[in-house]
């Protein structure tokens, strides 16, 4: 039987991506144009710079996705795109292109929630067979969310960050320590040389039984550690030994990972899930993967982690999730608008 081919687009933040996925699982191509170098100077994503780069990258990325997949334009069965949450000025580029392609080819158009897509990235290729029901942690530069997943489309939000996303905290702490952007890999690499127990940063668990997250406090704790209480002291980072910086990175990472792991396990216990899914850019962090793996093993939980290439923003996850909507006949109207928040 002819496979269902879905073209996915993604432009919610600072990656322009296109992918073609067969039957929601087999990735025929996944092309990502990263803009990290464009935003490095500013220590974070500048929306207008991201949006301009999306326009420039759009056609090269689309062309590469078709070339690598070796399929023709006529073979595409539906066009999907991440339409929320994200930067409106960035989302609108991929959204407009996807709607136009669907219209031009007379194919169904499908809008995808970017966070739900991250969760789907666990199910790409073989990793995600028979994984429902599950608890899913999506953790990235823009999001930190826990879901009860009964199926690819049956997602119930159990908790999310009330302030910074975990990845955002990594970026901000990297900035405090004057490490290169993006902060995740920089912190992880420095933390390997540090002692996670040398400096104990606060863990924020919020109210008893809450599955929400808060990471702004720990970022502030790192700032105070480096610049004195209330930032009245001098910035010591320049004079700090490599050892001390490594200890800060390790202590910070340990605190974030501990909160993520404990809340995820609490969520799994609450809904008696047997499987835990992990996706999003911070899922590439080895400390998080290793600790979650150990704790899950202790409790007899099956942990499925997205392949590293699908942890960061990509369009294969968008096309993968869209397949389930395609099968269910859940199409979107061409009037779909981008949204900054998760809908």
């Amino acid at each position, binding site marked *: 039987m002819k496979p269902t081919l879905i073209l996915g687009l993604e432009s919610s933040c600072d990656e322009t991506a296109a992918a073609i996925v067969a039957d929601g699982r087999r990735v025929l191509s996944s092309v990502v144009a990263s803009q990290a170098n464009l935003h490095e*100077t*500013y220590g974070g994503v*500048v929306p*207008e*710079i991201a*949006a*301009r780069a*999306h*326009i*420039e990258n*759009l*056609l*090269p990325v*689309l*062309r590469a996705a078709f070339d690598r997949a070796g399929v023709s*334009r006529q073979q595409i069965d539906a066009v999907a795109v991440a339409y929320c949450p994200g930067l*409106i*000025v960035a989302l*609108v*580029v*991929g*959204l*407009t*292109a*996807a*709607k*136009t*392609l669907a*219209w*031009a*080819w*007379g194919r169904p158009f499908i809008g995808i929630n970017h966070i739900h897509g991250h969760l789907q990235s666990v199910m790409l290729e073989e990793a995600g067979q028979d994984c429902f029901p599950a608890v899913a942690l999506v953790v990235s530069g823009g999001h930190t969310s826990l879901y009860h997943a009964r199926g690819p489309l049956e997602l119930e939000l159990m908790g999310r960050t009330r302030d910074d996303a975990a990845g955002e905290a990594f970026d901000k702490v990297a900035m405090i320590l004057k490490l290169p952007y993006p902060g995740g890999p920089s912190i992880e690499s420095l933390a390997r040389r540090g002692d996670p127990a040398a400096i104990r940063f606060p863990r924020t668990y919020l109210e008893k039984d809450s599955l929400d997250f808060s990471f702004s406090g720990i970022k502030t704790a790192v700032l105070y550690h480096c610049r004195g209480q209330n930032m009245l002291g001098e910035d010591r980072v320049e004079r700090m030994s490599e050892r001390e910086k490594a200890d800060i990175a390790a202590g910070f990472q340990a605190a974030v990972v501990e909160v993520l792991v404990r809340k995820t396990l609490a969520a799994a216990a609450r809904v008696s899930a047997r499987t835990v899914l992990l996706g999003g850019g911070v899922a590439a962090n080895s400390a998080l993967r290793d600790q979650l793996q150990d704790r899950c093993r202790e409790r007899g939980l099956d942990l499925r982690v997205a392949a590293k290439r699908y942890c960061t923003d990509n369009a294969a996850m968008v096309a993968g999730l869209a397949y389930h909507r395609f099968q269910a006949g859940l199409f979107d*109207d*061409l*009037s*779909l*608008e*981008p949204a900054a928040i998760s809908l």
Partner: protein
Amino acid sequence: MTAEPVRILAIETSSRIGGVAVASGPRLLAQEQFTADLRHAGQLLGTMDRLVRAQGWPVGRIDQVYVSAGPGSFTGLRIATAAAKALAFAWPQIRIVAVPSTDVIAQNALQADAAERLANVRQVAVVIDAQRQQLYAALYERRPDEAEPDGQSSGDGQFDEPVARFRTVRPAAVISATQLLAVSRKPLLVLGPALVSHRKALTQEGVFFLDESYWQPRPDQVHRCGWRRAQAGQFTTADELAPLYLRRPEAVERWEHLHGKT
């Protein structure tokens, strides 16, 4: 042998009010403006769909797309640009013309009912709000029929209309109201959406304003300008098509200002 008429889609999303026009060669068939301000992302495709269907055209048989390329709202410009790029990717026979949005607005001054004002002025200025107390402005001049077009703007930016002939004296650039008054020749006729906020700053002897109904760029004018450019062979490839921003991202300007670069 008669050639097939050229099927054209014209997109205007550079300003507060967006719209789409369909045309057959030089002939406008229909145009529709969006029903709400700043809803370009939500209304563009539905409007395109309605207009194209009403003509009975298969989408794959569109020949040319004209885009109001800026200056204007950055997000608006990207919406039209992304749509045009995607259309040309879907159907590679589609050819694209990028029209400066200032030319699109200038066309409004050539409407019969505005022509009276035009007959007595030296130059025409189109003004679009560039934020931070500045304007995107372009200057045009009536070109006497006998005059040779000057080399600099030959072909590009000129457009003939029944009422008057214009040539571009200054293409769109970021400029303050004071600077615009200094470089323009009076009597000067001014139109464009920036008059909502900059009318007072542009008020001076010898400066006249067109009525508010002429300020907004319209899709039929995108078609008119685009058609002229297409006749002159001024197409752009889908890869080259880029919004005419004229201004760098604010974060870049601020960063360079802070770090002493200009």
